[in-house]
């Protein structure tokens, strides 16, 4: 199971705490979302968490620090930084990759960086040199021709988007997901993880049966955190939610 967290949300310490509990509960890969005003791929739930962090001036640097703390806690969990090109470009790219390597993260996933973008190539090359992954996404609208091209640059695992749209906006169509996974399999032997629209453990179970190698839960977790932001036992409760998801897989 892959869980998406908005890094440093609601704060560095709390965020770290609840990620630890999530790892204990069975999360295999942590996606650490670094905040940006853009967030053009995110729905209102995740956007709100981003805004919360931006107000507190959380930066990509802080997210890398968080990645380090997560790594310090657990040697095996996958750590992927997720976000937008804007922050990485300004970091800038080379330093970002160096820092990523130095904290022993596994790679990154950039929402708005198709391989047509030269800056994506630059980033990807730098990551490759450090043996880090650039996780690529495949959308239902991705054509076969394009998928073929993408297959040559897949690395780590493949993020299969369950629908074209922004996070948290719809539910996934199982038949469509199934055929997407099948299609992607033709082009790669890497693990395929399915994300978007997985709101409940039951959703996760159904998606897991479509033939993918992992499911990604994002909005559901962030939403829970937002609604229970003042709860003292938030990390435990997030852990319980993750447990429940994992149990269904």
């Amino acid at each position, binding site marked *: 199971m892959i869980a998406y967290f908005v890094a440093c949300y609601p704060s560095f310490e709390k965020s770290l705490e609840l990620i630890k509990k999530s790892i204990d509960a069975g999360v295999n890969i942590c996606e650490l979302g670094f*905040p940006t005003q853009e967030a053009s791929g995110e729905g209102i739930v995740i956007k709100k968490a981003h805004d919360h962090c931006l107000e507190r001036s959380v*930066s990509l640097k802080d997210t890398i620090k968080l990645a380090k703390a997560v790594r310090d806690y657990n040697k095996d969990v996958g750590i992927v930084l997720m976000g937008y*090109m804007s922050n990485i470009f*300004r970091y800038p790219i080379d330093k970002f990759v160096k820092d990523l390597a130095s904290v022993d993260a596994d790679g990154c996933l950039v929402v708005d960086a198709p391989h047509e973008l030269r800056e994506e190539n630059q980033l990807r090359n730098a990551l490759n040199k450090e043996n880090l992954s650039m996780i690529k996404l495949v959308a239902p*609208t991705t054509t076969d021709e394009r998928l073929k091209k993408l297959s040559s640059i897949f690395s780590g695992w493949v993020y299969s988007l369950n629908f074209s749209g922004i996070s948290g906006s719809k539910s996934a169509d199982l038949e469509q997901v199934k055929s997407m996974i099948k299609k992607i399999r033709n082009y790669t032997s890497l693990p395929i993880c399915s994300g978007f629209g997985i709101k409940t453990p039951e959703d996760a179970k159904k998606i897991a049966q479509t033939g993918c190698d992992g499911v990604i839960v994002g909005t559901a977790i962030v939403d829970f955190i937002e609604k229970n932001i003042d709860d003292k036992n938030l990390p435990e409760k997030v852990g319980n939610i993750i447990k429940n998801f994992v149990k269904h897989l």
Partner: protein
Amino acid sequence: MSKEKIKNSLKVGSDKDGYFGEYGGIAAGENLMKNLEELKAAFQDAIKDKKFLDEFAYYCKHWIGRPSPIYFAENLTKKIGGAKIYFKQEHLNHTGSHKPTNTLFQVLLAKRMGKKKIICESGAGQHWSAAAATAAKFSMPIFGVMGDIDVKKVNQNIIKAKHYGGKLKVVPGALREAITFAIKEWSNNPDYYYLIGSTCSSSPFVDIVRYAQSIIGKEMREQFMELEGRLPNEIIGCAGSGSNFTGSMFEFLDEPKIKKVVVEAEETAALTNGTKGIQQGMVTKFLQSDDGSKSLGGSSLGSGIMYYGISPQLAHLNDIGAIEASTASDKELLETYKLVAQNEGIGISFEPAAAITEALKRAKGKPKDYIICVTACGRVEKDLDVIEELIGKDFE
């Protein structure tokens, strides 16, 4: 016009990756890539289709009222003392700005692509009212997004668009937020046609909008040859992202003797004060926080030029010295509005007031046979309440 290819011509679109030099490109989610590819193919196909281009020309003429005339601003010229100042009167177009030329082109393109619905963003509401009018004319449902800050300023455009049948979503913020939200909506509805209002965002939008608006410069060439027997020495336009300026000067890019000057709002001057970044679907200059997580920049009276980014093509042309950049302050916008109203009997909106401010500065002391053409891209109606509030008493 010569049909030969000029070596190293600047009159070109983006390269095969959608870049202008080091700016431009496509910084979009995977879920939009198919749409953008489709759009690019459809655009390239359409502009080879004579019937399509004839249709565009037909409605430009009959519906929009093009060509917009050039106008010798004789009184201002006398007052300033120097170069001859001409206005390219884009405010005389239907809906009152240069915007409908672009919306017309793209709605026709959307129809040609078989799209059934339109989505768009807007800053000053000019693009929104132009888009809604065009959608009504071509019987297409349309859905628009604007920031609440802008909505407060441009009430008339909002109402008109509603009357044309457009549905508006108001989001907190200004043009930046409107674009982000509209892109999200497009992601959710890839069957929509996304009708962008300026030369910004991912390729091929910059090329499409530039293509449509280039008619401005083509008309200018003909009109100046007819009236003055020669071309202007300088072409000046304001820029939010840059569509009216690009449309005005593109025709003359391979004529380096003609100066091209773009004017931004002082508070949101991305070209002058910005840094390179990747946001809003493109690589270009932005007013942004050092780490790229936030946009910067204040608020300008010219809601249409209050944008923290700039057309990537303009960022490139500025880097290589093919154009110059300047800025205008709110105080200057108000002063120029007054001058133009009282001396030429033309009520311009705040956006062209920025360009005209620069034109007046540059005209001063220049030889009498020096010609400056500035694009007057909007009329005052949308800004009238704000002006009355701020300087109404100046006119008593």
